[in-house]
């Protein structure tokens, strides 16, 4: 054996803001990706010890275990109200909620609309996977027309179940919203774009420009009954046409950062 040396360079590591424990997410789930992006941004902004997160109810209920900064855990749908309470008494802290589509766009629609309308200076990470993941894949407000779920077994019938809600577009109509965009986590290019949006959302809060939200189109392979790869293709082919990616509200003071 000949002797040789290898120069080691760490190119990929766990962000400080992500706890070093195993999570409960299903294989292939994009919650892990979303968590990592948030943690990377908090690290890069050097805000780990200045951030308070608000977890919601749903698959991300245990988010407080996975992020390594202060966290509180809200009742179903109430994270934006709880975040308002935290932010109003600690206005110099970074306050974020992390919510799924059942939590934010169904039971918590009142709280999210009111927080955005008030221009509450908080950042919302909104994970839209078109169903209720935690309870086993029921129809959500975001479930696509015709999409089969355990509570729409023959496909969502818009005649009886109504139409999916495009949350980002709706919240963007409110004057209190400073930054509202939709991104997707289905491939590396879009993951990078999502990270940039998450950074801008927290910059919006840091600069006091009002409510910020990044809607992240995500997959739920387990409840969709697909492999992770099939699920990523399904997202691209079915969700993006209904939920177009884009910047729905960008505060003018942010424009030079884009």
């Amino acid at each position, binding site marked *: 054996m000949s002797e040789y040396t290898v120069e080691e360079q760490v190119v990929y590591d766990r962000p400080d803001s992500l706890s070093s424990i195993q999570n409960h997410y299903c294989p292939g789930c994009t919650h892990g990706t979303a968590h990592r992006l948030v943690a990377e941004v908090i690290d890069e902004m050097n805000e*780990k*010890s*200045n*951030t*308070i997160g*608000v*977890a919601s109810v749903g698959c991300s*209920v245990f988010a*407080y*275990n996975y992020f*390594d*900064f*202060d*966290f*509180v*855990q*809200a*009742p179903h749908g*109430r994270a934006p*109200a*709880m*975040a*308002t*309470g*935290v932010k*109003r*008494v*600690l206005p110099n*802290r970074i306050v974020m909620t992390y919510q799924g589509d059942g939590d934010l766009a169904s039971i918590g629609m*009142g*709280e999210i*609309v*009111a927080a955005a309308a*008030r221009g509450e200076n908080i950042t919302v990470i909104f994970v839209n996977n078109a169903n209720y993941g935690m309870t086993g894949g029921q129809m959500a407000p975001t479930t696509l027309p015709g999409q089969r779920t355990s509570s729409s077994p023959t496909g969502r019938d818009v005649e009886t179940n109504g139409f999916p809600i495009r949350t980002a577009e709706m919240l963007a109509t409110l004057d209190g919203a400073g930054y509202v965009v939709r991104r997707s986590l289905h491939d590396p290019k879009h993951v990078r774009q999502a990270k940039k949006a998450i950074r801008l959302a927290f910059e919006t809060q840091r600069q006091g420009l009002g409510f910020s939200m990044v809607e992240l189109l995500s997959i739920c392979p387990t409840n969709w009954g697909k492999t992770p790869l099939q699920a990523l293709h399904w997202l691209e082919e079915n969700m993006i046409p209904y939920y177009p990616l884009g910047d729905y509200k960008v505060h003018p003071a942010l424009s030079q950062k884009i």
Partner: protein
Amino acid sequence: MAKELLKGNIAIAEAAVRAGVNAYFGYPITPQTELLEWMAVRMPELGRAFVQAESELGAINMVYGAACTGARVLSSSSSPGVSLMLEGISYIAGTEVPVVMVDVMRGGPGLGNIAPAQADYNQIVHGGGHGDYHPIVLAPANIQEAIDLTYSAFDLAEKYRSIVIILADGSLGQMMEPAELPPMKPVIMRQPEWATYGAEGRERRFLSSIYLDPPEEEEANFRFERRWQEIKANEVQFKEYFMEDAKYAVVAFGTSGRIALSAVRNARAKGIPVGLFRPVSLAPFPEKELAAMAEKMESLLVVEMNAGQMLDDVMNITARRTPINFYGRMGGVVPMPEEIEAEIEELTKGNISNETHPRDRWLAHMGKMN
């Protein structure tokens, strides 16, 4: 400080301001709205947090979030609004964060009306929200007492990491009477060892009411119960009037207690040996004191502005050993002192027996009246 003419809702609000409350979150509902309106002026001018929430759901969860940071937080509402807040109250209890709440009760059930009532007794004293938890419940009978209880409520909440609820009613909220406000305490941002305010220089923390492992949840429940035993041992408050030589006693809280006191005074003027036992802390209830007092009485009269919600507790505590009559008005109707005086005179006839339920006798009696 001198006495001023103060409206109940405003007096409670200003007492909280002077106790150093950091944040107020609420939603308009009659008959407590002046409390919110006072805070809308006072909190911003003092540089403290005030938000008129989108609903009582929003308000109680803002309270929850702010309380998790260690801040002194207040909310107020009235019966239907409090019903809506019970989800949040259960979460706050499960997370063990201190919060002070005010319930200015009105007639119900449902939308009911905006007149004074005491029908939230069960909803507040016996929980209302899901799970085993015990808020500390304090029932003032006049504006000075409302001020004093509110002023000390924050220390009490923080001492036990508990919810303290000031249980008033539309009458106390709306009336004006002379009272003295306490001195202004400095407003500080507390950083208790359990609070989440940003993890600078320490391990990060999280606050939650989740204990997914049942034995852990049971352990938390045992902690709540043991703390409640401690509260029961230390925090009982009640008032007695004309009890030294009494043979009969009226048991009533809040506004009922106040009206009953007038009736007791009138009865005393007629030579009837009657006194008033007024629980101030409805939770913890003055159980031992009531039981000991009842042993010495020939009979009791329980007066409430509901269908006998506290009556059930009084019957349990006295083990039905002392004959009890009940007199209640409901739905926003406030009893007149004369009505209670007539009920006191009934006691002196000595023909009361607990063989039939006091509520049944009251219903039959009210059937004749109406």
